[in-house]
């Protein structure tokens, strides 16, 4: 559900309309292309798996995170959870905090996304001992 909401290039945060006619309109006889379209769940699962690699290295974390932030979406909490755990495995608290800052920035004008993410990630943040940028006073200049 949330992936549809957080697709930033659409208008309206609350709209549930998906912009992939090939997927959500089985009666449509015309498709844009014949390539297989990845569902939101597949996308999420792929990224969760990527960050869940037990022996992930710093480069892979950096590469994955930068790529993910490059997409036109705010990642689901489960992807971020996986990424934060990867930071823990790499003993990199700074990156964990940076990831939280990045997704807040990525939400842009939709101010309700970040509190939702923090709310969903709260168990993980407490478990791993990650402070949010707000806790550390780094969200203000």
């Amino acid at each position, binding site marked *: 559900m949330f992936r549809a909401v957080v697709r930033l290039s659409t208008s309206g945060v609350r709209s549930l309309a998906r912009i992939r006619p090939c997927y959500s309109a089985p009666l449509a006889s015309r498709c844009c292309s014949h390539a297989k379209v990845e569902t939101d769940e597949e996308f999420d699962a792929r990224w969760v798996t990527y960050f869940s690699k037990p022996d992930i290295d710093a480069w892979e974390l950096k590469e994955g995170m930068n790529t993910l932030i490059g997409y036109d979406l705010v990642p689901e909490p489960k992807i971020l959870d996986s990424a934060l755990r990867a930071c823990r495995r790499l*003993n*990199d*608290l700074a990156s964990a905090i*940076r*990831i939280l800052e990045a997704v807040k*920035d990525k939400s842009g004008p939709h101010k309700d996304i970040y509190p939702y993410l923090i709310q969903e990630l709260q168990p993980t943040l407490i478990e791993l001992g*990650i402070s949010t*940028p707000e806790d550390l006073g*780094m969200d203000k200049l």
Partner: protein
Amino acid sequence: MLTSRALVRGLKSGFWRPLSSTSSVQAAHGKDMSPDVLDPSVPQYNNRLDTPLSDVPFVRNLNSEQRQLKEKEKGPWTKLTKEEKIALYRLTHELTYPEMRRGSSEWKTVLGGVFIFLGFSGMLVWWQRIYVFGEVPHTLSDEWVEKQTQRMIDMRINPVGGFAYHWDYVKKQWK
């Protein structure tokens, strides 16, 4: 603006480099003032909104205190104080996102400079008007223009949609 910043940086490197960048400052911050920043073939640190995790940490040459902190980071993060967490963040990143997004007041300088130069040009034009230009031709004097206008009305210049059209010949006034 590119030129003002380039000018300032040129001044900085020319005059203020020996004062502002001592070798200890250079050593502590892996990013600036070292040969690496001039070598694009080596990974560099950068502050970018779209690239949260940079290729290298901001501070690469850690002193012993910082190295101890890094060791502590390998343990549970719940044991770190807020100051330590902030310090760890600042070791890896130079600027936070709000700091990256912060604008500068450079526009005020630019606008002020523009107005100063426009004003100066205006002063020059004014001086020129007073001291360089001669008198205006006599055909632009009020008396001449009056007589000219009357003549144009009498000749019915552009009677359809132009000059004489706007004159009411009955009431002898402008419409």
